[in-house]
């Protein structure tokens, strides 16, 4: 390995020996192509013409007025396939192509990353197999169909709790077995080095655009940037360009499930402890022995007992703050944005919206300029939202 892949003490390469050469190969390719003109031109083209970048920075005037803050939305929800995930799948998909890999595997929880990977696989003509917990397959039939119609093979995972964590385990096992021709396209800033660094690289486009946009619109930096945190990719993507601006508050919002006290949540940074899961040292939800716990969140994208290592570093250094938002608060955020702005956020992003409302209600925050990273749109969640709101559709 050329870099040590650490963020402070977090990160690393805690993987079986069989994967080390694959990680070395991937790191090499990433370092080579990230500054390669041809690669970047091609990626830029797809980001613009295939995915729909740049995304807008939209002043949400109605909730701004209602909440007494100036609230901007970074519109990642406008991207093709419905979320920021496509930034990373395009980057890694293209990298896999440049590396000559003829097979891509991915994990997915709700299906958002699986759909983005399936789309990129279809476009680049590389076969895609997606591991998905059998629980999630049952809960997300429509998304399974969306992946399959783009030609991806969805493999239900019957191990453990049959959710995202188990799908990731199974994807690693596949990669261990087929490492020579296969690229494992991880969907967030987690996993062993170089993934956290590489996924961040492909997601910083959110922050780069956003910084320029807010300076154009406001002639100053925002007071706070708020993003939801599952594995950490949309939040790192937008935070990264503001980290050195010490006056900009960075707030990551975690899936609080039924509340921290209930023990049923996905708030890894707020309520977890240091540990090693899926290849890196970071915060995890676990018992005293180190057995990994199950996460709980109504939003599948935040339903993960780990988190990316850089987030742990930002937490321990105090540069970013992390706050849990419960399921019911998130549902309120979902309603708020739908009702007042005509924008239905993904349930993941609804957590960030809900926290922005809380933040705005603090007297000393009145009048501040806030950016919410609207990581995805709510189309995928409409059935669940209807059910939770007691509406028959």
């Amino acid at each position: 390995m050329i870099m040590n892949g650490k963020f402070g003490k977090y990160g690393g390469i805690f993987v079986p020996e069989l994967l080390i050469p694959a990680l070395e190969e991937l790191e090499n390719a990433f370092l080579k192509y990230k500054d390669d003109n041809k690669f970047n031109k091609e990626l830029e083209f797809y980001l613009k013409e295939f995915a729909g970048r740049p995304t807008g920075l939209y002043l949400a005037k109605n909730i701004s007025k209602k909440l007494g803050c100036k609230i901007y939305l970074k519109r990642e929800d406008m991207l093709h396939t419905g979320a920021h995930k496509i930034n990373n799948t395009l980057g890694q998909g293209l990298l896999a192509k440049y590396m000559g890999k003829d097979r891509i595997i991915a994990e997915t929880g709700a299906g958002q990353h699986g759909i983005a990977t399936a789309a990129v696989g279809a476009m680049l003509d590389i076969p895609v197999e997606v591991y998905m917990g059998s629980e999630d397959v049952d809960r997300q039939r429509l998304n399974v169909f969306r992946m399959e119609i783009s030609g991806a093979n969805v493999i239900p995972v019957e191990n453990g709790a049959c959710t995202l964590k188990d799908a990731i385990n199974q994807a690693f096992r596949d990669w261990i077995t087929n490492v020579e021709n296969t690229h494992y396209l991880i969907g967030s800033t987690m996993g062993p080095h170089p993934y956290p660094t590489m996924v961040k690289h492909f997601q910083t486009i959110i922050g780069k655009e956003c910084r320029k946009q807010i300076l154009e619109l406001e002639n100053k930096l925002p007071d706070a940037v708020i993003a939801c945190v599952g594995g950490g990719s949309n939040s790192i993507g937008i935070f990264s360009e503001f980290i050195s601006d010490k006056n900009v508050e960075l707030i990551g919002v975690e899936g609080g499930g039924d509340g921290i006290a209930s023990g049923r949540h996905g708030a890894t940074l707020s309520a977890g402890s240091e540990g090693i899961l899926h290849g890196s040292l970071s915060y995890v939800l676990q018992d005293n022995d180190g057995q990994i716990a199950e996460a709980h969140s109504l939003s599948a994208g935040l339903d993960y007992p780990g988190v990316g290592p850089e987030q742990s570093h930002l937490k321990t250094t105090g540069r970013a703050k992390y706050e849990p938002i419960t399921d019911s608060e998130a549902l309120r955020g979902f309603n708020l944005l739908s009702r007042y702005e005509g924008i239905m956020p993904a349930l993941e992003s609804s957590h960030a919206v809900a926290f922005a409302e809380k933040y705005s209600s603090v007297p000393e925050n009145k009048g501040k300029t806030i950016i919410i990273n609207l990581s995805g749109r709510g189309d995928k969640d409409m059935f669940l939202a209807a059910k939770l709101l007691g509406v028959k559709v």
Partner: protein
Amino acid sequence: MSLENSSLESYSEMFKRASKKFEGVFVPFVVAGDPDFDTSLAIVKELVKNGADALEIGFAFSDPIADGPTVQEANLRALNSGINIDKNFEFIKKIREFTSIPVGILIYYNLIYQRGIDLFYQQASENGINSILSADLPPEEASEVVKVAKKYGVNQIFLAAQTTTNERLKVISEFSSGFTYLVSVMGVTGARNEVKNSTVDLIKRLRKHNDLPLLVGFGISHPNHVKEVIEAGAEGAIVGSALIEIISQNLNDKERMLQKIGENTLKLKEATKNCL
């Protein structure tokens, strides 16, 4: 009972004992507490009684990414039966009541990390563990662990695989003590039908870059495989999934389970003999 001044056999003593008899070594792998504490202990007794030269004992983990379905299920059965780290150590202590052959453990690193590296290795040593192999701890992340292992006289074991470059083989051999665990397949643990030619090549390549004895595991499931890898130059073989399958297939008939474990152990040990 610290290893240095105890009556426990070391790996080098074991390899000497076997080579004097012109034998390879046979090392079975099972998960502590699978399917439950007492049955698991009875299984280990059968293994020892029928000729195991050393033992490899798994400490169950919730997310074993290097393991195929057979060992995953064993982990799950053990966890469901209530095994935890304290009980794992107690399990090893009980094993020490009836045998002094080398006992190694196979574990995932988070379990060591949570207890604290120093305390974990101290307890390992006190309970009579000869070696620790952490499936997700490559040499890059292991400098602290290797130091602590030395302090407590525990052998730290590392994996080597076909994809491991010669350069890395050298690093692995510097970091390891006791033996090197050679992964015979590209893949996770699980019974296989054959030993790949590439395994034989790897044994030969490793020999050039590594002075430690070699034990071959992952996918070794038949007495013929054992014979083959020893004839190719390894000191012995580790067999896990093929034995664990006997456990999972006989969960309702413990007597038959134990009898079959015994019979198979005997055959697998037999295969280490006369392969010169």
